[in-house]
């Protein structure tokens, strides 16, 4: 029982996935570990939410309706408001090229599905640490 209580000071994670269960697993697991979580189910929604809440980390599924993950990532990285937010891509199958394409689109890292909850948590913490360092450097 290491469940932490979510509070307004806890880091905010945006989970983007068109599959409800996938969103729920991530949200529940991260929430369980004390993160605030917002979700989006397509690319356009992802952009809206990102600009609206300015999350600390974005977990982005790449195959999305409306606007795919690559395009959404490029848009967020191109925008000064969101360009600093780490984006971790979630891909279905780690075939050659997919990882590279994700990195080329601006993703900071790639996680291959199925997501192992522990790895996901470690990744989010690593990204937050990197960002914290950067923020720390600034401040």
């Amino acid at each position, binding site marked *: *029982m290491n469940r932490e209580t979510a509070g307004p000071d806890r880091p905010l994670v945006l989970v983007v996935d068109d599959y409800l269960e996938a969103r729920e*697993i991530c949200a529940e697991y991260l929430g369980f570990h004390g993160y605030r979580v917002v979700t989006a189910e397509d690319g356009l929604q992802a952009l809206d939410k990102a600009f609206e809440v300015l999350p600390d980390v974005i977990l982005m599924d790449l195959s999305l309706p409306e606007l795919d993950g690559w395009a959404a990532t490029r848009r967020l990285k191109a925008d000064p408001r969101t360009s600093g937010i780490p984006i971790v891509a979630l891909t279905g*199958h780690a075939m050659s090229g997919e990882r590279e394409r994700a990195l080329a689109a601006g993703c900071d890292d790639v996680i291959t599905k*199925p997501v192992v*909850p522990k790895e996901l948590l470690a990744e989010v913490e690593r990204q937050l640490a990197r960002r914290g360092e950067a923020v720390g450097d600034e401040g």
Partner: protein
Amino acid sequence: MTPVAIAQRRTPDPGGGAEQRRLELVDALLAAGDGEACAVTALDWLARHCGVERGLCAVVDRAAGALVGVAGHGLPASLAAAFRIDLAARDHPLAVVLAGHEPVHFRRERGKSGPQIVTPLGDHPFLAVPIHSGGGDRPIEHGLLLLAGAAEPAREREACWAAAVLGIRLAALELPLGLAEERRHERELTLLRRGLETVTDPILITDAEGRILVANRRAEQLLTAEDRMSEGRRRAVAMNNMLFSAAAFTGGPGDEPTRRELLLVDPIEGEDLLFELLSTRFEVGRGETGTVSILRDVTDLRRASQEIEDNYRRLRIAEARTRAERDRLDLILDAALDPILVTDREGNLARLNPPAERLFAVPDAADADADAAERRVRANDVVLTSFLSELAAAQSDRLRGELTLTDPVSGESIPMEARAANVVSRQGEVTAVVTIFHDLSEAVEKERLYEQVKRHSEELERRVREATAELAEQNEVLRRQTLELEQASALKSQFLANVSHELRTPLNAIIGYAALLLEGISGELAEPQREKLNRLESNAQSLLAIINDLLDIARIEAGKMALDVLSFDAVELIDEVMAEVEPLIDRSRLDVTREITDEIPELASDRQKVKQILINLLSNALKFTPRGAVWVRAGFDPATDLLRVAVVDTGTGIRPENRISIFEAFGQSGGSVLRRQGGTGLGLSISRRLARMLGGDIHLESEVGVGSTFTLELPRMSMES
């Protein structure tokens, strides 16, 4: 001979004009052939040179014992011939003169009596000159010259000289033999001479020494020289004499006459003359012999005969040539395979070559078919005749037609092409007709065969066309099928991709929820629940692996597996692989060793795919080795420029019969193993396909119960941009 002849002509040269005159007389007398001629000659000479106006020559006729007139000048011949004095009257003044040696003048003296001398000279005074020969004490009395008008002493002297010369000449003419006989002889001689002269062929008589005794004018022209002749003529005559004496008769009297050819030169015309010399020897008397030579001019004859001979020879040559030409023509005709026949204008057969003979000549065979053959030959003849009559009626000299003849032996019909042509002489007359047949049956047969071939080839062409069309149709079908297959394949790939995505998404959710439950997020789990949840998670993972492998196979088969060639450090990659399978290694409790045997250069290849292959090989080794060790040995062969990574295990080994099938999809040796080990059975198949896509391969060495070695061989690929 010539010298002889000339010597004969020579007389003592009296000198001066008188001498010249005398020489003239001698020449003339010598030319005169008989006594009468001599008398005429002498009288003529006296008339011209001694002023004799009338003259009479009388000679002694010893048989008759009388002095008779033989020739006269200035008086009628009848008077001269009528003059006669009986020599028995010795006191006749003229008989006295004859017996004496001196000339006597007679002058009619008027009123004086005495014996009257009646002469044809009339009342004119005349001089009587005795003609004697021999001289000395026994001269031969030949006769008298009674000359009127030669009253001068000088003329008298000349008359006496002339009488003397005449006497010598008459003596030479052997007048003393008796006048009657002499005259007969003389006449005969004259006749002979004249006869000889009329003969145009040269005739001459020579003595034993070759001197010419008698020669006619033609012979003299050729063989006797005269002073007044030109040098050229003289030389020609000298040469002729030489040639003649060389060819002259050499036998004795009574021998057969010889007949030789003699080539002489005409001294006047300068032409070569060919003579046939006929000569024979005869007894002249007193042991002497003479030779009679008759030269027959055969120049023209020879020329003519030469010409005839030449013509004959030319004729022979022409004939030989004609014969050769005909033989050659015969050879050609005989060699020709087509029947050729030559007919005359009336259509009668003149010449047949053997092929024509076969058609138009009755065969010799005496068998039963002979009649039939003859009938057929006659039928052929009729066909030919009607064809030739067509030619005769035609305006042209040529005619072509197609006829049908019958083979006389076999009775077969032979279609023939016939070509007939008139042979036209230079005068425009048709001398012959040549007809050439050409057997068309072969041509007809050829045409038939050609038609057949054409028909077959058309049929063939049609079939080929049909087959081609069919083929094209099939091709089209195939193309469509291929297209459909390709589309199907693409659809399949797409379908698989979609299906695997659709499968994976809920599967991922299952795995995720299982993970959440195992994490205890939804509350603590009892141990049996945790155990069942672990099984659920493990099976979900297996299912996911199968789906992923299927997707890979589908992509490879669809050619959709893109290569991404990069340069990377192979050793680093091996370490990465080892790290990734570490959970498996830990679980296997095997002794896993990494060995790098060579200096390994940077490798250019698709890193992700190499990694996938190595993970597969290593995880297989770990799965199928119950106990013992696993080695990962990397080496580089500079000779072949190949990277080799061998994964060696001490596992169960693979039976030879399975060593190929394990590389095939779902080919793991034995389905039970799959289930026990949790492999998909697609790993090796995917690995080998990937290795081959990268230009390399995977080799297997194995021994059942000892272990297996899977070796990945990879070339360094060229970097693509």
